């Protein structure tokens, strides 16, 4: 049997709603071998039916659910005052609890969280909410768009005339899922070291904001230098169309700028990077010449030319083209899985551990598939030694 890093670690997942934050956090722990039990109402986890904010096809929704919940166990439970005892028992038995029910929900059910906090247990409890468990926004309703707006993710994405736009693909939820998993493991590490129950107040809004506060620090530096409030208004290379698709030309250093100008025949702009980044000078001429050069070349040709010059040039990939890229053809990552709607392709784990590899993916459980086993395990634990 393969050894996993978190074999024997018991994780309890509560709530989370129809988004990916909490299921992705616990998926990461399953990948490392944890035994994750998620509690769902008898009519099934909200995500089984898709997302409240999306018209995603049922087959696709079921497969995304399968991807996120492979290897977990399902306990079906009506969350009401009559089941408090079971829920409290599950919390007491868990090494990690990830509570995505929302601010005040456990208390509303009659669970005395404070009393549980004081129990002699080493449980790590992460309480996940949109805004955090305090502050003036605490009880505001939120959607992906409003959370991104409040946190600073909605921008013109360095295209001066673009109406500010959100980040797609629910990226913020995947980002938050990884932070939740890190918070859970940190709290667990503390609980093991100190012998104390450790709790975490996790804010998805703050998590989104955590990825961008540098723009303020850059602004402060620019003001001190007297170069104006905004560092860059324009992306002179960036994402552009080629003959057969889109390419990303990502300039970071002055050397890369000069090399990119050389490769694309834009020699006259070699010493005009800052001017163009500020959106000044012959921006339109630069753009027209660049598009003209790219229009007769394929994505593969431009990537090869750029990378040969050590310029960060990559294809702008899609859900269709990613699995076919040479890197992932030679370095297996995407795998085929059997889901409730048939076979589908999914990404592998986001890490490779040499001694404790990722757990093999089992299908996601049906609603309540493991209820009896889990209840019996709880009863056994209650029998005095």
């Amino acid at each position, binding site marked *: 049997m393969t050894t996993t890093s978190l074999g024997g670690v018991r994780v309890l997942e509560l709530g989370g709603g129809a988004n990916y934050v909490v299921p992705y956090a616990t998926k990461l722990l399953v990948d490392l071998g944890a035994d994750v039990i998620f509690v769902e109402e008898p009519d099934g986890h909200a995500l089984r039916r898709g997302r409240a904010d999306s018209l995603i096809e049922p087959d696709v929704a079921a497969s995304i659910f399968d991807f996120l919940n492979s290897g977990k166990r399902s306990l079906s439970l009506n969350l009401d005052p009559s089941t408090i005892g079971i829920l409290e028992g599950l919390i007491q038995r868990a090494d990690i609890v990830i509570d995505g029910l929302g601010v005040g929900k456990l208390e509303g059910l009659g669970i005395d969280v404070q009393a549980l906090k004081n129990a002699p247990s080493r449980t790590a409890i992460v309480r996940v909410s949109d805004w955090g468990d305090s502050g003036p926004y605490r009880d505001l309703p939120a959607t992906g768009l409003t959370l991104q*707006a409040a946190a600073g993710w909605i921008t013109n994405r360095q295209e001066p005339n673009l109406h500010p736009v959100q980040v797609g693909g629910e990226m913020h939820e995947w980002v938050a899922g990884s932070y939740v998993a890190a918070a859970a493991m940190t709290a667990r590490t503390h609980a093991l070291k100190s012998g104390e129950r450790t709790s975490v107040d996790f804010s998805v809004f703050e998590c989104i904001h955590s990825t*961008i506060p540098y723009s303020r620090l850059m602004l402060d530096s620019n003001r001190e230098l007297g170069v104006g409030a905004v560092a860059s208004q324009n992306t002179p290379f960036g994402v552009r169309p080629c003959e057969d698709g*889109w390419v990303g030309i990502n300039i970071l250093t002055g050397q890369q700028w000069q090399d990119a100008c050389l490769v694309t025949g834009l020699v006259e702009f070699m010493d005009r990077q800052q001017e163009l980044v500020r959106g000044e000078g012959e921006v339109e001429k630069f753009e027209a010449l660049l598009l003209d050069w790219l229009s007769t070349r394929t994505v593969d040709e431009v990537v090869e030319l750029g990378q040969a010059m050590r310029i960060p040039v990559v294809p702008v990939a899609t859900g269709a083209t990613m699995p076919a890229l*040479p890197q992932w053809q030679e370095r297996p990552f995407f795998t085929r899985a059997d889901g409730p709607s048939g076979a589908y392709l999914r990404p592998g784990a986001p890490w490779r551990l040499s001694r404790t590899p990722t757990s093999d993916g089992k299908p996601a459980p049906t609603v309540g598939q493991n209820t009896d086993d889990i209840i019996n395990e709880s009863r056994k634990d209650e029998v005095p030694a």
Partner: protein
Amino acid sequence: MSSPLPFEGLRVIDLGSFWAAPYLTSYLGAYGADVIKVESTQRPDGFRFTATDPALGDAWYERSLMWQATNLNKRSLTLDLGADEGKRLLSELCAEADVFVENYAARVVEQFGFDYESLRKINPSMVVMRLPGFGLTGPWRDFVGWGNAFEQLAGLAWVTGYPDGQPKTPGGYIDPTVGMHAAVALMAALEHRDRTREGQLVEVAQIEVGASMSAPQVIAESISGVAPGRIGNRAGAYAPQGVYRCADETTSLVAVSVRHDEEWKALLTVMGHPEALADAAYNTFPGRASHHDELDEAIQSWFSEQSCDDVLDALQAAGIPAAKVLTADGFNEDPQLVSRSFYQEVEHPLSGPRLFPRYPMQFSFEAPMGPHRAPAPLLGQHNNQVLGDELGLTEAELRELRDANVVGTVPAGLAT
């Protein structure tokens, strides 16, 4: 007695540069680890030179606030890994370390002789974290890239932007996210190490973190043959949803989502039931979704005459999800961030007191002033402490290292 920090007693050797790996190690340092950041005067962390300029003052390579934000809670050591003595000293540090972290392109640390097999021979209990952009294997292992490129390659740019416009790059948010994915794997590997004394190699390829977050795109295409595309500011099952400009003189935008018919009615009440939105077809989702452009136009027209704060208050009072679009100017004053002390003041010896972000989680053991324990170190600030006090080098030996430029405190080329 206060509770111990979770990573107290953990020794981390940090060869990270720029953002992803240094973000991970700064986090470990905040929560108790002893992080030794290893640079060289020949090749300092390139992030030191981002958003800074000689005009900021002496030692300007210490003054990048972005670099500082990513390197709080660490000690700094310089070692020229091109010199035999530099390699020997790093090996000596690794022999006593718990964790080794790096995020260069795959070939870089290997060229200096610090591939995993060599590190394992030095210290089989050490967890070696490698965070290459494209992976340690494969035809693209030596490709160059950074956050924006990884987001483009991993399908995240494809779904960002407007349906009729260019794919837009999210903006490098993948960097700290890679750091946190790595934190999860590292803590699991340390649990294994604590049980077995067995270290291991943990590879976190940055494009694979990105691809993991693009799962729905890959899954949808494999089932339906259609890869999801760009939807601007909309959401399939909410209508209307958008970002609207208010009348304020400075640019002010408000994001609004209408999730169901009741919220639509509430929005109409807030807006005073404008004639342009009176069509009964709009009372249900299908009618609103199929006329979204017209709704946007009417809503924008009304917003154009409202002050941002007033409209936000009214929408929130009506229970409609709405938020002002936050811009960099407002980060330090945002009511929610201020209320929860998201920014922590840390005093740097050259830059003075500055506000740095903490993490989006508040632990029950956390100190009231926030998690950060120390400002970013100056280049080579702890050379004598680490090499002299801890590895036992004499003053004469340290002088020799300085004279041979194996250690130093000023980047090569800037020394006078």
